[in-house]
């Protein structure tokens, strides 16, 4: 989790990732940010994020992102 | 069920109060006079409001074709018949009917002449729904007068003072020749008069009959707006309605328009010279009816003589020619 927040802060600072639950709906992360994030995640956690997974629901908070990562690791 | 009843009642009360409010607000917005500055739209057509009661014997209704081709002052000069053109640009039948109703309030014309161009012109249901309530809630038409709101006129009742010297006629000096190609080419086909238009035509006719006026249909000459198809359907309409129909575009009633000189915009509208021909013909026709009085020696109508002098002066100024009166043969 800490590693994830580090990655997020590297991409877009000035956001309180611990508590923010509307990263997408609140317009904190842009589409290009998402691409950077996915590239990092795929490297870091050895997963593949398919296009279908890229929905606000999966990216709105650090917790949701972590959940998605865990799910993809299981596949 | 009880709740539904309550809601229906609420909705009804809301609507009733709303209509009451619009009615009350309307009193603020109706124009207090008919001058150009009072934003009574189409003020030349509304000049009749300031004429003395029952002083106008003929009413001309129609779109711009009418104010370009019929000159009431000249008819007065020739025969002493008083008339007025309630004609407005792009007039549609819903507006025509309103002018007719307004006119009957203080006038009792013996003849109503309806120009036929607008009989075949489309108007949308939108216009109908938008303009029909304007008659009862004038704020819907005159709402733009908030721009010239003044406290001083708030408690004034409308009083009309603007008399149009041309009696609704517009004088055009320009000449722009028309292309006569295909004008009034023979055909048996008929143009379509929509059912909505027909409904309004019936309303106009019954209003005239109720008030004891004769309705006459008139097609003024125009290469752009008139053709044989329209003539055929209008002729058929006139026959069904049992009214007289004069089409100056066909040889029977031709007034000898010279399309190289008598039009101001390539056959769309007539200019001063064309208007003279149409006016003299229609004057002769109206006079032949034998029911329209000659007011020329009546002191009460001396305003018309002043208007005539003014028009003569304007013609001289604008057209650089001397005004020539009609030659009356009979």
């Amino acid at each position: 989790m800490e590693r994830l927040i580090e990655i997020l802060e590297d991409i877009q600072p000035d956001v309180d990732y611990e508590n923010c639950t509307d990263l997408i709906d609140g317009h904190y992360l842009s589409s290009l940010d998402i691409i950077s994030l996915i590239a990092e995640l795929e490297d870091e956690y050895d997963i593949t994020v398919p296009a279908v997974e890229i929905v606000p629901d999966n990216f709105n908070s650090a917790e949701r992102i972590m959940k998605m990562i865990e799910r993809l690791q299981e596949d | 069920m009880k709740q539904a009843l309550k809601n229906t009642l609420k909705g009804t009360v809301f609507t009733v109060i709303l209509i009451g409010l619009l009615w009350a607000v309307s009193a603020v917005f109706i124009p207090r006079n008919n001058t150009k500055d009072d934003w009574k739209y189409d003020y030349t057509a509304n000049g009749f409001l300031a004429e003395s009661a029952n002083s106008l014997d003929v009413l001309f209704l129609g779109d711009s074709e009418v104010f370009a081709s019929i000159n009431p002052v000249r008819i007065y000069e020739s025969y002493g018949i008083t008339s007025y053109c309630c004609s407005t640009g792009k007039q549609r039948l819903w507006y025509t009917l309103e002018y007719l109703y307004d006119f009957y309030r203080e006038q009792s014309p013996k003849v109503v002449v309806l120009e036929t161009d607008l009989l075949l012109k489309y108007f949308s249901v939108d216009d109908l729904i938008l303009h029909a309530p304007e008659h009862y809630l004038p704020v819907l038409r005159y709402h733009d007068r908030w721009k010239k709101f003044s406290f001083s006129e708030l408690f004034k009742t409308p009083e009309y003072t603007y008399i149009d010297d041309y009696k609704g006629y517009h004088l055009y000096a320009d000449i722009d020749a028309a292309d006569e190609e295909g004008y009034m080419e023979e055909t048996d086909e008929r143009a379509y008069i929509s059912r909505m238009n027909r409904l309004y035509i019936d309303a106009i006719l019954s209003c005239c009959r109720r008030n004891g006026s004769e309705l006459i249909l008139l097609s003024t000459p125009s290469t752009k707006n008139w053709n044989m198809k329209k003539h055929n359907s209008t002729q058929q309409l006139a026959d069904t309605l049992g009214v007289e129909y004069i089409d100056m575009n066909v040889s029977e009633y031709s007034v000898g328009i010279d399309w190289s000189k008598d039009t101001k915009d390539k056959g769309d509208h007539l200019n001063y010279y064309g208007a003279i021909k149409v006016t003299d013909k229609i004057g002769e026709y109206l006079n032949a009816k034998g029911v329209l009085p000659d007011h020329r020696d009546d002191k009460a109508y001396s305003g018309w003589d002043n208007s005539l002098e003014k028009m003569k002066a304007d013609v001289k100024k604008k057209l650089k020619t001397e005004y020539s009166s009609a030659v009356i043969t009979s």
Partner: protein
Amino acid sequence: MDLSFLLAGAGKTMTSFFSMTYLFLFLPFCLIVYAVTPKKAKRYVLLAESLLFFWLVSGALVAYLLISAVSILLLGLWLGKLQQKQKAAIKDLPKEEKKAVKQAFLRKQRALVFLGVFLHIGLLLVLKYTGFFLGNINSLLAAFNCPFEMYIPQFAMPIGISFFSLQALSYIIDVYHGLVKADKNYARLLLFMSFFPQIVEGPICRYGQTAEQLWNVGSIKYRNLTFGLQRILFGMMKKIVIADRLDPLVKKVFDEPNSFDGGVIILAAVCYTVQLYMDFSGSMDAVLGTAEIFGIKLPENFERPFFSKSVSEFWKRWHITLGAWFKDYIFFPVTSAKRMKNLTSSARKKLGNHFGPLVAGGIALFCVWWCNGLWHGAGWNFIFFGMYHFVLILSGNIITPASKTVLQKLHIKANSAGYKVFCMIRTTILVIIGELFFRANGIGSGMELFGRIFTDLSFRSFDQYLLPRLGVDAYDLAICAVTLMIVFAVSVVNEKGICIREVLEKSNIVVRWVVLYSLILFIVIFGAYSFGYIPVDPMYAQF
């Protein structure tokens, strides 16, 4: 009495949800018929009314819609069957073989999706862009002095084809991804495609968002009715008081790009952006309000876009459903493609974590904005409009690290109120420039106008003759400003998460009715309608 003539020719005006025909004839008629129908049949009444609407506006062209819905029904069912077969086939296979079989099935499914894309985009291309492409070829031929010229056919376009084609495609792709189940019911699919409030100007809905809602419609609730009507009323104020009032000014300046100096052009550009926003978002209020009366919640298309701090954010809050469509069906699929991912990982090694992903992202972004520009219309100015935003958004991302350093050096806090306001103003200016090219009659005219802002920046035209020349007066501009202030105040309240209609609901009836009467009288008195005004078609209905 036979009143059918009232509907004959009504379609001409009905594309506007603020037309009298729609508000006082069509909508009440629909609501009454809907209300008296038994619950189980309501969905079919809604469908019939939607088709009636389409037929009134576009006549026989309703066939396009019917056929389009048939095509996605068949493709969807076929995809569903393949997915079932796939499941059955891999059930008992060992893990290694599973993958190969899965791949084979995926290839087949993908072929079907491509068929769907080919059909819908193909049709859209032919109907909407033939003239543009052949026109360009003709000018190219003329440039090389070729003696022949291609014949340019004219097609009649059904209303809303740009919108419902995208809905059709999203359905097929969603079925392919397994996000929604293939629908066996033609009526339900057709209703999803044709629901009448959204057919003219969107919002572009997904099957998962509206299909079930529309199919399970219930009775009209009093609360929904009042909420819906209130929203329509608010939209009406935006459209009739502001947008329509500014129309003559905008039209005059954009039609005569050579006649005015820079100052007037800036005024017109600002007015156009205001007009477009008020027209489009006002129409959306009418659309969502109408849907709300039926108890349907459509996705929002606007989220106070002028509070955006960057152009990229702006496009997430302006015409949201279009942006989201491009993002979900072009941007992320392109960046998620295998080759793109390889590109990203190799670029990250060379360019670093920030710039690396921008290579693939840039390519995807280019595709999105090329499509976005063309979607709005067949014209070079629309393509330019798209490319303009592509450059702005990409460069915005490229300079992010640099601007962070600059901010730090200047000791400006990125989340301070002052800096946020600065960002909002900057974004608004960039958007206004983009919309200037969007509105211009062709790219040359747009360049002329934009150039004049710099080469001829003066205010010498601002004398007493200017406003009459532009077809407006000082009162018009004043009332627009006042009304904009009202809209702005409402936006601020909304931005704080307060719903005014809910507040009104809780307040007592006198307050509530006074507010509503005031709004209605405001529109009646200050609206630009009836005498002296020409009705203005809704701006997004032409796209």
